[in-house]
Each structure stands twice: as C-alpha cells, then as structure tokens.
C-alpha cells in the first residue's frame, strides 16, 4: 500500500515514496528528483514514479495512492493556450468579460497592456447574447429564456469546432434555471462538449468575477482533464494501479473526476503542497506558528500559519494571469525573488534585484551557460555561502570566477564598492524584497512575527533563513529535514477536501425568523452536499469533518470577511456568535469594528474534509552528546552579514542526530540544500530532524 507524492516545479519534479511494514521492502521513505518535462508534465511524473519504485525496490503494483501537485492548469493560463471557448450570456451584456472592472493595471501609463482584452478567455465572436432576464433581489423571471436562440448559438459553436462552452447569465446566483436549461440544450446539440454554468462553478454575486471564474474553468478544463485522465491511464498501463489524487489550490485533495469537472480549483495546485509540507514538518516538533518561505529559482511562495492553521484567502482577492478567479486558495503570495533573480543598476543609479530571473537557461553566471548578469546564487557562491563543488552533491558544475566577474562588472564597479560589498548588497536587497512580502502576509494582517518561526525550504531556502528571520524579527528558523522535497512530502499529509457555497444575502444582526429557517435549511443542504462528495470518493460518512463559514460584511460594505459558524443547529445564539466572530475578524484585519452597524451575510461556505493517512516521518536517533564534531566535513571561508569572513566548518547533515547542537558560524550541507548558521546563532537538531536555528539556545527535542 505504498504512497507516492509527486510535485512538479518549474525546474524539477520532486518525488517522495512512502512504504509501510506490509510492503515488500518494509516501512521507509525514498526521495527522487527528475527534470520537469515542461511540454508534457506527465512524462516526468510517470518517469519519476517508475524510477522511484525501481530505486526503492518496490513493485509498481504495491503503490496504492499517488498524490500529485501540478502546474498544468496554471501554465495554460500563463501561456494562453487553453481551449477555444464559447459563451452564452445575457443579452445587453456581451462584454462583461471584456470590460472587467474597468480599472487599468497602472495609474501612470499610456502603453499598458490589458490582459483581459489582449488575451481574452472567450473571444468576442464566441460570446453570444441570449434573450433572458432574471431580476434582483428575488430572482423572478422578467424575460424567459429564448431556447431557440440558445440552440442556434450552440449550432454556431458546433460549426466553429468549439467543444468548450460556458453559460453565464446575470443574477444566476438568485435563480439558476436559465443557466441549467441552456446547458442542457447545448449538450443536446454538442453531446461531447465540456459545458459549465457560472453558478455551478461558483455560486456567488458579482457578475464579472463569477463569469471570469467560470470562463477560466472552461478555458483550462478540456486540456487539464485530458492531462489528468491521460496520466491516470498511463500509470495503469505501466502497472501502477493506484488512486490518483490531485492537490487543489486550497490544500485539499480531490479525485481526478472532480478536478476534471472543476479544474479551476487546481490553478494553484503547485505551491499548495509546500505550505502543507512546511506545516507538517513544523508540527512534528510542535511548532504551530510558522511562516513558510518556499524559494525556487525565480520566485518565492510565502504563507503565514497561525496556530497551525493554513489560512484560505478571501476568494475576492484571488487572481490568476490577471483574471479574477473566485475559488478558495491558500493565502500565499508569490514574489519574483529566488536564486536566479538578477541584480542590476537602473538608469537613475538605483540598485535593484529581480523580479527578472535568469531561470535555468542561461541560469546564474556561475553555471557557465552564457549568463553574464549576476544573480542571487552568484552572490551566495561569492560569499562562500554555497560551495561550488557541492551544488546538488557536486552534480552541478559551477565556475565561481564567473560569479565574481559578473558582480564586479555589473554592480561593484559602477557603484564604486568592493565585490564583496556588492554581493552582500544583492543578498540584502533580495532578502528585503522577500521580507516585505513576508510582512505584507503577516504584520500587515496583524500577525506579530516575533511569535513565529520562519521556515525556509526549496533547495535555496535555508541559506537565506537567518537573515530573513532577522529582517522580519521572527524568533528563529526551522530548516526542515529535506528542504528540496518538503512540497512533495506535503502531498502525503493532506486530506480529501471539498468546499461548497451558496450565495444568500440577509441581515444577521436583525435576522427575521423565516430567514433563519431558510439559512438552517441551506446549511443542511450544503452539509449534505459536501458529505456526499466525500462519500462518493469512498469516505465513510462518520469520518467527514465539516467546517462552516458565513462570509459577512457590515451592511453597505463591499468586502466580506469570514466568520466561523458554530457546530450544530443554527440557533439564535449561534447566529449571535457568528455576528460576534465577524466583529472580531474585522477588528483583527482592519483595527476597527462598527458595533452599531448591521452585519450582513453574503455567502455560506461549507468545507468538508476526511482525514487521509499521514506521512510517517521517522524520528532521528538520539545523540549521546550535544557536540557534533564528527559530522564536520571540512572548513572554508564564508562571509556573513556584517561583512566579516570567517573560517567556517561544513557539517554533513546526514550525520547529525537528535540532540546535536551546531554552533555558528557553520554551514550544514545536504544533497540539495545548504543551511546557514551565522556567528552567534546555533542550530539544534530536533527529534524529527528539523534544524532549529536561532540566536538564543533552543531546547526543542530535549
């Protein structure tokens, strides 16, 4: 019953295999890494899955579950190569998708691009207006659906070879009859079409955001479902008859069927595993307040977890490729700062790092692949924070001279500073960019980083950890046991999860009894809907955990915040509690509450979860002493933040045991990552192999 986690990144596909005592090789975990196959991710995934089985000596038939984090849907939206989509929309409103919210991407620009106009999800020629009209605020029909117009439009789509159709009518969140009927007619005309209604994809008010979400679903749908069903088939053909599960943007797992129906839910599948993996490894050692920083080649994904809680973003704030996508996503921010970020001097003499990246081609100057611009990796090499002969265990060929040359010519000489100062500057600026993003995801939301551990991972993460922690005043750093596969491991720790929503506007503070009854009924419906989805995936009903939210605002406001609904029946006192939860959330987020104002419900949301089996991560052997001298590999000079270069020992992380303490200055080396312990800091090895790096001695694992 072995399980595999496969995380596809921009450069590498990371694989983790977990086996159990009942498996032929006994219990254990195995790691593997293959280059990502960008054209068709499934090639790399399949290769990685088969190779990791061979490497571990596990039979393919022993694999029972594969959990997959994929950027396939994201890439379609970035590369604009989705399906040709047809749209049926309310007559008089053909251009909701073209107009958007009519705000420009830049205040001060004449030559700006408007992504929703230059790369529309549905071309205007295929947006066909249909006579129909539903009226607010109760959803009565003013003009009934003209079925013949729908049929004609469907035939036109058929002629144009269109196989993906979205139906988006105004006020369908009040009354979905027209959308549902139009979908039926389209399917009568084009039986093999991929058709979705806006209210089925997201049942929420605000036409542009709802249509955009549904159109995105139709745009990425056909290709994404083809990819997923192909992958499933190929795995089977190769003897891997496992359940394939996909991680969604909200961190929950879903079946292939469900993702084919709503691929819009896996647009942020890629970074989700990292947040969950970070949380998992921190939780092993009972750290609940962490800031995860997943640093790759071009970007860093940052998320703040309070009390071990992965925060889900307000769907109103979710955008993909410039298009709003109102689906639950983990609250994380991605910034253009990573190992490949390029340092340069702008025309007015400003010293900048990123967001442009050297990527993997040409890559940092030191890769010797023709890159002449200095990158963050070059600065780390120059400062002796990364050892050129140890990159990927020595598999990656590095020329430190090229780093020196690039930094000298492009930064140090023009600014009249030493090369070392320039390299320190590059690190400081990129760290600062990340720190600002960390703050906007933490401090800006009322979270005090002094109560948090910073958790850097991705191969390039741990070398930046201490400086970032210091910059944001975090209390310390946790370098997880396997920084390079933290995301893949995260895939084996998350739960099956579905969210269902219903738009329902009503006053909560002064709720009238018949509305309270409707609310109770709606909530019951949502509960059973969420439960049904899980049961369909083979979950026992009594294992289903439901969490319910009221998305509320003060009457008259435009933005909702989430208030949790207490378990059980929605009594008057439960509603009072929801109102109070909302006041508290408002105060937390904005520093103010309007006690006199009416609290209005906008959307009900129920999250159904079923706990999966969690990755079993073995404890490290306990060391008999604190001193870790035996793990020392060699010593070299390393330059630290204040500019002093110190002879610094390198430790082999493989040899570190629980209870060992490494005193800075030190570098702790492993195959795909280097952890930095600055002078005055120390790293203690926890029970589960996390490095707890801080200025003050920690007692974790003792």
């Amino acid at each position: 019953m072995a399980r595999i986690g496969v995380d596809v990144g921009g450069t590498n596909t990371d694989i983790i295999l977990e086996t159990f005592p009942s498996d032929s090789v006994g219990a254990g975990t195995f790691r593997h890494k293959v280059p990502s196959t960008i054209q068709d991710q499934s090639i790399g995934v399949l290769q990685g899955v088969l190779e990791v089985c061979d490497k571990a000596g596990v039979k393919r038939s022993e694999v029972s579950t594969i959990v997959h984090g994929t950027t396939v849907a994201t890439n379609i939206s970035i590369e604009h190569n989705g399906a040709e989509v047809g749209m049926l929309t309310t007559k008089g409103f053909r251009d909701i998708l073209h107009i958007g919210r009519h705000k420009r991407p830049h205040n001060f620009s004449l030559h700006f691009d408007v992504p929703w106009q230059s790369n529309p999800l549905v071309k205007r020629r295929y947006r066909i207006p249909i006579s129909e009209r539903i009226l607010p605020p109760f959803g009565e029909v003013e003009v009934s659906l003209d079925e013949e117009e729908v049929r004609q439009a469907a035939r036109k789509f058929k002629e144009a070879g269109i196989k993906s159709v979205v139906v988006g009518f105004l006020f369908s969140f009040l009354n979905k009859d027209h959308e549902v009927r139009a979908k039926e007619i389209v399917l009568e005309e084009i039986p093999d079409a991929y058709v979705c209604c806006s209210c089925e994809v997201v049942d929420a008010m605000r036409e542009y955001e709802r249509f955009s979400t549904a159109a995105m679903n139709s745009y990425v749908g056909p290709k994404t479902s083809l990819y997923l069903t192909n992958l499933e088939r190929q795995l089977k053909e190769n003897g891997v008859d496992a359940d394939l599960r996909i991680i969604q943007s909200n961190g929950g797992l879903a079946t292939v069927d469900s993702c084919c129906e709503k691929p819009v839910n896996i647009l942020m599948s890629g970074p989700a595993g990292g947040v969950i993996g970070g949380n998992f490894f921190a939780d092993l050692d009972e750290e609940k307040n962490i800031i995860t920083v997943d640093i790759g080649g071009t970007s860093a994904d940052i998320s703040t977890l309070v009390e071990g809680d992965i925060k889900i973003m307000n769907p109103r704030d979710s955008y993909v490729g410039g298009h709003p996508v109102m689906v639950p996503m983990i609250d994380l921010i991605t910034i253009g700062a990573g190992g490949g970020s390029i340092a340069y001097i702008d025309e007015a003499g400003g010293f900048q790092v990123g967001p442009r990246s050297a990527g993997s081609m040409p890559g940092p100057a030191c890769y010797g692949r023709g890159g002449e611009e200095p990158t963050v990796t070059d600065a780390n090499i120059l400062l002796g924070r990364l050892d050129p002969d140890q990159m990927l265990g020595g598999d990656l060929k590095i020329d430190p001279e090229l780093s020196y040359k690039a930094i000298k010519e492009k930064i140090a000489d023009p600014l009249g500073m030493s090369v070392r100062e320039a390299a320190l500057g590059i690190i400081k600026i990129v760290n600062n960019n990340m720190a600002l993003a960390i703050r906007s995801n933490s401090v800006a939301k009322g979270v005090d980083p002094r109560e948090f551990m910073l958790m850097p991972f991705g191969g390039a993460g741990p070398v930046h950890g201490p400086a970032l922690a210091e910059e944001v005043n975090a209390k310390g750093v946790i370098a997880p046991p396997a920084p390079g596969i933290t995301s893949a491991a995260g895939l084996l720790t998350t739960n099956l999860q579905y969210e269902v929503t219903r738009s329902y506007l009503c006053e909560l503070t002064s709720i009238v009894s018949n509305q309270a009854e409707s609310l109770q009924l709606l909530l019951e419906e949502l509960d059973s809907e969420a439960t049904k989805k899980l049961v369909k995936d083979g979950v026992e009903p009594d294992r289903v955990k439901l969490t319910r939210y009221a998305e509320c605002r003060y009457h008259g406001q435009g933005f909702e915040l989430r208030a949790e609904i207490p378990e059980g029946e929605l009594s008057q006192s439960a509603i009072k509690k929801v109102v109070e939860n909302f006041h508290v959330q408002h105060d937390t987020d904005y520093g103010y509450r309007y006690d006199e104002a009416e609290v209005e419900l906008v959307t009900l949301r129920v999250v159904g979860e079923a706990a999966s089996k969690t990755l079993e991560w073995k404890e490290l052997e306990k060391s008999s002493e604190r001193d870790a001298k035996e793990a020392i590999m060699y010593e070299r000079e390393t330059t630290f933040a204040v500019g002093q270069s110190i002879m610094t020992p390198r430790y082999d992380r493989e040899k570190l045991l629980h209870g060992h303490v490494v005193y800075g200055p030190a570098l702790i080396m492993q195959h795909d990552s280097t952890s930095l312990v600055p002078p005055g800091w120390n790293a203690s090895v926890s029970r589960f192999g996390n490095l707890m790096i801080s200025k003050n001695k920690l007692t974790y694992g003792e």
Partner: protein
Amino acid sequence: MTNLKVDPITMQVISGALDTIAEEMGHVLYRMSFSSIIRESQDLGAGLFDKNYQTICESESTPMHIGSIPAYLRGVEKTLQDGGWNEGDVVVHNHPYYGSSHTPDLAIIIPIFYKGKLVGFSANTAHHIDIGAATPGLIIDVGDVYAEGMLFAGLKLYEKGKKNEGLAKMITANSRASVQLMRDIEAQIASAQLGVTRFQQLLDKYGEDFTFSAIYQLMDYSEKMLRNKISEIPDGEYRAEGFLDDDGRNRDVQLPVVVTVKVKGDSVTVDLTGSADQTPTAYNVPFEGSCKVAAFAGFRKLLLDASELEVPIPSNEGSFRPIDVFAPEGSIFNPIFPAAAEARFTQCNMMIDLIIKALAPVLPGKTIAGSSAAISFASYAGLKDDGDYWVFLEVNEGAYGGRPNSDGPDSIDNLMANTRNNPIEDLGMHLPMICDRYELRDDVMPGAGKYRGGIGVVKAQRVLTPGFITHESERHTHVPWGAFGGSEGAVGKCDIYNYDSKDDVKSMPSKFSGYTTKKNDVMAFYAPCGGGYGNPLERPPEQVREDVLDDFCSVQHAYEAYGVVLDESLEIDRLATAARRSEMGG
C-alpha cells in the same frame, strides 16, 4: 540633520517600507468603506507627508488624488482650529479655496508625533456620496461654492484624542447619506491611524534623521528620473487647443482649453493662458488641489510609463518638482472665490489629452491619439419607502486613443480616472436600480488607424423610484482626434427614456443637474471612442478581418476606412482589397 549618507541598500529597504505603508492605508480604507464610490470605485488616496507638506509616499489608488494632499495641508495651515497641532488631533478638511481637490473629497489628517515632536502627517482623501449640496451627490448648475454643501477648513474632529461630538452631529445632520458619510469618515480615520503607527515603527527602526535622509534622497531620485526624461525633449513651446461642450447651464457656448507646454532644459511649464474664463456654474477647477495635480499626472504617464519601467518609481514629491503650472486667475482652471468648483474632472482630463497632443510632434513614439478624455460621473438618487434618501454615484469609463504600438484599450477608465465599476448584481441587490445594458457601443466605430482607437461603453441604468439624476460628462461635440494619419474617434451621447416607452427618447446634454426622474426612467450613457494612430491602410487586412469577426469593426467600416474587402463568408478578397487600398492612396 537630514542629509546623512544612506547606502543604496537601506535606501531600497526604506523605499519598500514606505510603499507598503501607503498601500496598506489605501487597502484598509476601501475595504472598510460603505459607499460604493469608495469601496467599489476606490475613489481615494492615502499617504504620508513631511512637516513641509511634501509627499513621502502615496497609495496607487486613483490618480486624481495622488499629489493633491500637499495642497490640502497647505490650506489647513492657514485655517487650522486653535492654530496648532497636538497629538491625538484628527482634522477634516475640504475647502476648495484652501487646497482641496473639490468639496466631496474630504481629507482626514492626523499629525505624526515622534518623541513628542511633530514630524509629519498621515492623511487620506476619499470621495463622499453626499455632503449636503444643492442636489444629491453631484452638483454642476449652482451659483457659488456655498451651494456645494458643508465646507470644512482645518476643523478638528478629534482634539487631543477627544471626539468633537458637536461637529460629528453637525455632519450627520447635513447629509442625505449621513450614516455612510460618518462610517466612511471612520474608515478614513482607521486608515490614517494605521499610517501613523507604521511610520513611527519605521522611525524606531532606522532613527528619525536617517529615515528622513532616505526619504529626501528618494524624492531626489524620483525627481531625477523625471528630469532626465524631460531633458530628452527639445526645448521649445508646444501648443494644442480643444474645447468643452458648455458650462452645464449656458448651452451651445463652447469653452476653449488652450495648453502651452514650455520645455526648458529639465523643467517644464504648463501654461493654460487662453483657456475659458471661469464659469458661473460649478464647472471650474480648483487650481491647487486639482489643476496642478492633473498636470503632474500627465507628465508622469507620458514620461515615466509604469508599464515600461522595470521597477516603479517611488510615488513622492520628487515627481511634482520639475513641473510648474500656470493658469490666469479668474480662468476656468483658476477660479476666484466664491465661484463654485465641484465639477472639475473633465477639464483636467482634456488638459492631459492636450498635453499629449501638444508633444506629439516631438514624442511620436510616446504619445497616443486622442482619448475619450472625459468622464461620466453620474449621481442617481431618490427616496426610499421609509423616507430616507438613497444615493448612488457611478463613474463610467472611457476609451483610449490608438497607440504607437497597440490599439487603444476599450471601455476602461481614462487618463486621470482609474476607478473600478460597481458590479451590476451588487447594485441590483442593494438599491432600487437595474442595469439594462452594459457592453461596447455598436452605434459608431472608433477611430481607424494602423492601431485603432478604443471603443466606448454603453451603460443603461433604470431607476425604480422617482428621484434625481445629475450627470457630469463631456465630449458630445468635440470628437477625439486621430494622430499621424489615424482618423478621429466618436463623440459621446446620453439619452433618457422610460422603460415602458422606449421610443420616446430625450437626448441630454453632456452635463445636467438635478433632472427629475419618474419610476422606470432609464439613462443610457454612450462613451466617446478614441481616435486612431497611424495610417489605417497600414493595418494588416488579417487584423481588420479579426476585428470584423469580433464585431469591433463592421464590414462596411472595413471597406470604407481600411480598404479591406471581405466576401460573404468574411474571407479577405485579396484582389479587391489591393484595388481598394490603391484607390485610397495606400
């Protein structure tokens, strides 16, 4: 001591921190607000200012607000209650002859004290839906500034932390939408308070002298970026003229706008001499808080285009310094007290459009064809069943002129405007209004060119109760121009009719005040379309065909303006196209 040496690295750190503070202030303000003009349209500005009222940083919200707050602060200095600042004071200010942008844009200003000493100000401005003017929401046809509603000049809503309840009651009693007004003011206070806290934290971290040294060097940096660009323009005087439809009362009397851009070295003066005299209505522009701000924004768009900069320039005082603005006293751009001056937006947008036009000969690769350069600002109001007013302010979008390398964007806020629309569904759920149509215009074609002009919108809004509409728009008579061989765009229009008798259409002027509506009356606004850039015959026939397929262009327009002949199945007839294009001189 504020000229300490700041290393380039710390400079970036402080610059980023200032940006984040301003963005956070703006974010809190619109998230918390109640009226749709702030929460959905984001008609607001927020930032930090030094003791001498220089902008330290400002949020990227609406351009009209960016750069206006220093003028408010200078006005507050002349009018401040008790004459001095104390910790815990909160000042409200909107007097257009003491620096405000216009009366509905209330500023909330909180002094920032550090170690017992005044070091600067945290402030924001936001457009409020009703401050008790002669007509609900907006006003145009009124006689003087007193008809614009409550005037606040340096008034303390909080004195040393204690709320001035009398003033609050007075505000509440003088607005048709007093609940929203007061709550939005509270949101402004929360936002400004956040700015104070964040700035004090920054001073704690880097020290007062060092932080201000960095701030002043950042101002110099922004200034230098802009001066570098100005000095690339050949010295000289560049002139362009346009005109406005009327003053909102005296129909058929057009008002000239004359812009002379005087470039000398790395400085520029915008001289508005020759523009119309001030009007007897509210169709005038407050000089300090609006006219100058528009000129600053115009040059920043033109010369420091954010989409072409690798990193944004810090939004601070430096970008204002190289630009001087002159408008004769008593002119529409510099009215004399007590002239009313609430409706000032379209004149500002026309000024920017003309700055671009004036510089076209020397900046062909940067300038664009004529844009809608107007705004549609509509106020819908009526009485609810309980006797309370409902008021809705809506900003409708315009369209851009064709550009040197791309088509003018369609249906999008233009030049000085950059708000968000109010979702149709949100509107329908909260107010007695229904939107009947919201899509691209199909009654006219935009300017033709190698790159076509943007297409304006049509928006038809139905009111379900009797009430009033006031509408401030422009360009019913002055069509957006084409550039470098592109053809002109299309003028805007506005109709009112009743939903139950749609054929009985009343054609409205671009500006009207307090029009009395019946139940089910519909106002349909048609935005002007942008002019084309470059010779239409240089537009590839394939692209013209694509536009026809998307109904951005009619078959007839493809033939007449572009010389592209399409057959019945909308394929290009190559021979006929070549013949037609050669006949047209291509």
